[in-house]
C-alpha cells in the first residue's frame, strides 16, 4: 500500500462486475462469465499448450517440466506456511526422499514409472511425515531451523554411510516413454493439484488448518489435536514435493545427492514470495517467472542463486504482497485518490 501524500488517501472500490459475479447466481451475461473465467482459462490453457508451442525448442520444453516440479514444491511450501503455519525451509528434503524412493522402487523391484511415481509419492510423503513428527510441536523460527537441517542431514548421512549408491546416486532408472508423457503428467498434476488445494482450504478442514496457524491454543481448547492436523499438512506438502522428485528422477533417469540441494529449497520460497503467498496460485506464477530466469542464468553457475536471493529480498522488502495479490486487486477493484 502506498503511503498517503498530503491530505489524500487511496480509496478502493470493488468493480460492479465483481460484486455481481461473486455469488454464482448473479452471473447474467457472457461479459460477466468471461470476467470470471478469463484469468483462470489463461493459466490453464497457457500451461497446457506450453509444451506444444515450445515443441520447436526441446530445451525449453524440458524447462516447462522443471517449472512444474518447482511449482509443485512451491505450492507445498505456500500451503504449509500460509495455511498451516509451518515454515519449511527444507523443500529439498521432500524432493530427495521422493527421488530416492522412486529410484529404488524402479531399480530394485523393477516397477514401471506409472507404478513407481504414485507409490513413491505416497511412500515418500509417509517417510517425510514420520521423520517430521518429532518436530511438529515446534513453531515459527524453530521449525524453520530444524526443517533447514533435514536435507543437509540426509545428504550427509547418505554420504557418510555410503548407502543408496553414496555420492554417485542411484543410476539406471527407467526414463519415460517419450517427452510428452512427462510434460503432460506434470502439467496436469500442477493444474489438478492447484484446483484441489484451493478447494481443500475452503473446506472445513482448511478452516482448522488456518486455526492452527492463527491461534493453536484456541484450536487445542476446542478439543482438536493440532499435531494431527500439522502432520496432515506436512503429509500433503511432502506428497507434492515427492511427486515432483519422483517425476524428476524418471526424467533424468538418475537420483542423487543433488536432489537434496539448495535449489529445491530456495526457489519455491522465492516463487511463493514473488507470486504472492496464501493464494496457492501465486507460487505457480512465481515459478513461471523465476525458473526461466534461472535457466537463462545457468551459464553463470552459482550467480543464479544470488540473483533469486536478491529478487526475494527485494520482494519481501518492497512488495511483500506478491504479484498475484497485487494483480487480483487491480483486476477486481477501482483505485482512486480522494481528498480527506
Amino acid at each position, binding site marked *: 500500500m502506498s503511503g498517503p501524500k498530503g491530505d489524500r488517501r487511496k480509496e478502493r472500490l470493488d468493480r460492479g462486475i465483481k460484486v455481481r459475479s461473486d455469488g454464482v447466481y448473479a452471473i447474467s451475461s457472457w461479459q460477466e462469465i468471461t470476467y470470471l473465467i478469463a484469468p483462470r482459462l489463461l493459466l490453464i490453457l497457457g500451461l497446457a499448450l506450453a509444451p506444444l508451442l515450445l515443441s520447436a525448442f526441446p530445451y525449453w520444453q524440458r524447462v516447462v517440466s522443471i517449472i512444474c516440479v518447482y511449482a509443485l514444491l512451491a505450492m507445498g511450501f505456500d500451503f504449509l*506456511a500460509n495455511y498451516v503455519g509451518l*515454515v519449511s*525451509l527444507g523443500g529439498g528434503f521432500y524432493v530427495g526422499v521422493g527421488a530416492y524412493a522412486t529410484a529404488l522402487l524402479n531399480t530394485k523391484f523393477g516397477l514401471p514409472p506409472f507404478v513407481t511415481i504414485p507409490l513413491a509419492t505416497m511412500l515418500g510423503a509417509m517417510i517425510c511425515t514420520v521423520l517430521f513428527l*518429532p*518436530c511438529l*510441536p*515446534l*513453531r*515459527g*523460527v*524453530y521449525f*524453520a*531451523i*530444524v526443517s533447514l*537441517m533435514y536435507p*543437509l*542431514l540426509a545428504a*550427509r*548421512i547418505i*554420504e*557418510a554411510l555410503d548407502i543408496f549408491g553414496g555420492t554417485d546416486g542411484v543410476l539406471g532408472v527407467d526414463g519415460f516413454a517419450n517427452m510428452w508423457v512427462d510434460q503432460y503428467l506434470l502439467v496436469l498434476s500442477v493444474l489438478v493439484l492447484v484446483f484441489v488445494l484451493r478447494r481443500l482450504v475452503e473446506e472445513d478442514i482448511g478452516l482448522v488448518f488456518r486455526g492452527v496457524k492463527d491461534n493453536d491454543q484456541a484450536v487445542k481448547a476446542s478439543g482438536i489435536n493440532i499435531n494431527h492436523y500439522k502432520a496432515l499438512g506436512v503429509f500433503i506438502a511432502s506428497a507434492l514435493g515427492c511427486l515432483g522428485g519422483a517425476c524428476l528422477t524418471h526424467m533424468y533417469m538418475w537420483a542423487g545427492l543433488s536432489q537434496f540441494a*539448495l535449489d529445491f529449497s*530456495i526457489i519455491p*520460497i*522465492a516463487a511463493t*514470495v514473488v507470486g504472492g503467498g496464501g493464494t496457492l496460485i501465486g507460487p505457480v506464477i512465481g515459478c513461471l517467472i523465476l525458473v526461466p530466469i534461472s535457466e537463462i542464468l545457468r551459464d*553463470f*553457475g*552459482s*550467480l*543464479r*542463486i*544470488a540473483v533469486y*536471493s*536478491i529478487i*526475494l*529480498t527485494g520482494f*519481501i*522488502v518492497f512488495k*511483500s504482497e506478491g504479484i498475484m495479490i497485487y494483480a487480483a486487486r487491480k483486476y477486481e477493484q477501482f483505485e482512486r485518490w480522494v481528498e480527506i
Partner: protein
Amino acid sequence: MEIIIYGIINSVSLALMAVGFTLVYGVSRLPNFAHGAIYILTGYLTWLLMNRLGLNYLFSAIVALGLTGLIGAAMYQLVLIRVRGMPISEIIASYAIGLAILEGLRWGGLKGGTFRLPPFIEGSVNIFGVSVDFQRLFVVVLGATIMGALWLFVNNTKIGLALKGMAQDERAAMTLGIDSDRMAVVATAIGCMLAGVAAIVLLPLGSIVVESGYQVLIMAVAVCIVGGLGSWTGAIMAAFIIGFAQILTVVYFGAHFQVVVALLAIVVTLISRPSGLFGRQKELEERV
C-alpha cells in the same frame, strides 16, 4: 589428553562462531541467518585488503571488521527493519541476504584452496605431549578475551546496559527511553563484527571457502539452540558440549559424522527440552 586439548580448542571456536548470532537474537529477537555469510565475507575482505592493496595484516583485519560492522548495520537499517516482527519474513530475508553474499562470492571466483590467510604466529608448542600450533592456542586465548570483554561491555557501558535491557524486556526498555531500532542496529553491527572476529582468528586454520559459510551458520544455530536461544551462559556451555561431542565422534567414528553431531544435537534438544539447556521459561510458550 589429545581429546581434551582439541576438545577445548574446538569448543572455543564454536563459542566464537555462535556468540554473534546469540547476541543479535538475544537483543532483537532476530535470527540472523546471514551470519555465516558475514563470517566468510570478513575473511575475504581481509584477504582482499592484504593481497590487493598490500596492507599490513593487522590493519587490514581491523578495516575489514569495520566494514563488516557497517554492512551489518546497513543490512538491518535497509532490509530487516522493514520485516521486524514477522518471523517468517525475518528468516527468509536474512537467509536470502546470506545466500546472495555467499553465492555471489562463489560466482566471483571464491573457490578452491587459493584464498588463505596466514597464521598470526607460525610454529607449534608441546602441551602435555600434544603438539598444538600457536594459532589454535591463540583461538583459545582470544576466545576467552572476547567473552570477557563482551561481559564487561554489556555490564559496564551505557550502550551495553541498553542492549541488556532490550534483551530482558523490550517494552520496558522503550519506556525508559531506549531507542529499540537504534539498539537493534548496534546489536546487528556488533553481532556481525563478532562473526568477523571469529573469521579472522579461525580462517587461518583452513582456507576461505564458501561451504564453510554454511557450516558456520549451522554450527552457530546448533550451539544457540542447544544452549537456549538468547542465553549467553547456555551458548558457552552448549559450545563445550557440542565441541567435545564432535571431537569424540571424529576420534571414534570418522570425520564424516562431525556435522551430523551438530544436527542431531539440535533435533534432540528441540524435541526433549525445547527451551534449550539454559533457555528462559517464557520462551517455552513461543516455541511449543
